[in-house]
């Protein structure tokens, strides 16, 4: 289903009835990443999942956006759907960082928060980040003579090799730089809502200690560390994640 928000056509899914649960996907992903979670939760809740602008079937913002622009947009989207109260927000990866920033600024309001392999601790591995940036920059310089498609695929590989889930989407490269530049640790420290944090101990994109860091910063949080090496924990450990979330939301 589509709706026009701030002159952008946005694709979303609204399934189930009851208290509203909002799902926010990560970078280069779309709302269908949550298809199993949506099926599971929609028997008890009204689950709203949107393709964030620039991803899935939603139009791309006309300017580069940071997390604040995205959070403001989500607020407008909810107003458009006449949704006033959010019971819970569930964010994966960059969607987690977005939820933290939106809640801390008061643009988004919710009773509960679930962070799945959440991004937002931008300086946890300074060396790794430096390598990422250097390799990516080197990639840009040394590959400028290659065909555009080869260049993009190579640059995506470079980002992938150094352990980032945030593949470069060409038309969103400025937005990518703005969003990954935003560290949300100070925002996380302001949160007072009950929060469930789930991470995988060998996640190649988000280190386990980022989850521990959020657990330390968010007062009423609970950390569940899974044994695994997949960043898309809601796919690989779907049953566990669904049950953990369901239990947390019903408390």
């Amino acid at each position, binding site marked *: 289903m*589509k709706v*026009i928000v701030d002159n952008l056509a946005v694709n979303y899914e609204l399934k189930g009835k009851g208290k509203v649960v909002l799902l926010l996907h990560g970078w280069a992903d779309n709302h269908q990443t949550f298809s199993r979670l949506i099926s599971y939760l929609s028997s008890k809740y009204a689950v709203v999942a949107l393709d964030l602008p620039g991803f899935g079937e939603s139009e791309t913002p006309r300017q580069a956006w940071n997390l604040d622009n995205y959070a403001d947009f989500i607020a407008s989207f909810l107003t*458009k759907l006449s949704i006033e109260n959010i019971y819970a927000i569930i964010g994966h990866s960059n969607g987690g960082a977005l939820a933290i920033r939106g809640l801390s600024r008061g643009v988004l309001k919710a009773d509960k928060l679930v962070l799945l392999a959440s991004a937002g601790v931008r300086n946890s591995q300074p060396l790794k980040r430096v390598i990422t940036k250097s390799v990516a920059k080197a990639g840009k310089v040394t590959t400028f003579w290659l065909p*555009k498609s080869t260049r993009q695929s190579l640059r995506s590989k470079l980002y992938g090799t150094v352990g980032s889930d945030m593949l470069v989407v060409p038309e969103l490269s400025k937005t990518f730089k703005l969003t990954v530049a935003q560290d949300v640790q100070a925002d996380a420290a302001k949160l007072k809502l009950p929060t469930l944090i789930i991470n995988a101990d060998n996640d190649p994109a988000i280190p386990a200690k980022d989850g521990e860091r959020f657990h330390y910063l968010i007062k009423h949080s609970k950390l569940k560390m899974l044994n695994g090496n997949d960043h898309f924990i809601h796919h690989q450990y779907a049953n566990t994640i669904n049950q953990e979330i369901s239990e947390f939301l019903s408390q």
Partner: protein
Amino acid sequence: MSKTKVAVIFGSRSAEHDVSIVTAIASIIKPLELSAIYEPVPVYIDKQGRWFSHPRLKDIALYTTGQIDDFLSKQKPLLLQMGGGMKITWPGIKPKSVKLGAVFPATHGTHGEDGELAGTLEMANVPYVGCDMPSSVIAMDKALAKTIASYEGIPTPKYVWFYSRDFMGDNDSVLTKLSGLTYPLFVKPVHLGSSIAISKVNSAKELINAIEVAAHYDDKIIVEEAINNLIEVTVPIMGNASPKAALVEQPILNSDNVFDFESKYIRQGKKGGAKSSESAQGYSKLPADLPKELYAAAEELAIKTYKAIGCSGIARVDLLIDSKTKKVYFNEINPMPGSLYAHNWKKSGLSNLKLAENLIDLALERFKAKQKLTTTFKTTYLKQY
């Protein structure tokens, strides 16, 4: 004997640009490469509206790998010469020209299928495949097509159309106009194909949001009542004066009873996703699972509609059936069906090559008939000056 050169024109400035690439390459160019009488010449219109021709444009991988922009940056756009036929010229130090024996338009949606290309080819006086300009213009305007069909006694669901500027200016008067319709309703941009921006709504709030979505893509909108106990069927038709139907086909609808873009081109009718290599038949029942009389009624109404709109060459008529009342309604007509609906024609006994060749034959037949019309009218009008 040398083969007749047939320019296959595809791409263009349209939301259905990518669908057109597949139609042209898979259903027209590749089969015609086996033809003993016709030689396909690929003519690709890029998203900026520039025309190009090069043998590599016949390779689907050029588009799927995203190499097309790089490739085109090294090519010069074609020069077109019109009048007494159509000639395309590759510019350069030694320009090369080819006179086209016929043109096979394979564009979908705006700036092509909507009649613009047919009009251009008509001006050039070159034989071309498919509907002519007036019928394309009517077919590509869902409101106009329904108005003409209704006038000819063809049943359609109850509908209201309006310009989006009227809704943006004074939505109360538009909503009053719409209040005579019964929910659930379908909201559609009138000019877009492939079910882009179509919404099914159940309440006034949803209706306003859906109109905004349609208005985001088009300046004219149609809102129509949904048919109960719905069976949707589609009928590909081919011919000039005596059109013939292929098989009546029953697409698999999504959960909102919409045969949408995703169902057609992405999921290919499979729940939970399907690989693009799967056959087009995957998304439909072919032939439709209908009682004999209903099947015949659908076929008859489709041909009647094809004639009423003035189609020639090829088109596909979409119908809606209320399975309880057994009533068949005209929904919409597509002057250039995606991939020509070759899978359906194939099952009707026509190979991909024969389908493409027959369509060119029909284009030549129509062209010949038109040449017999007198286009001059002797008067003494100028003498008085």
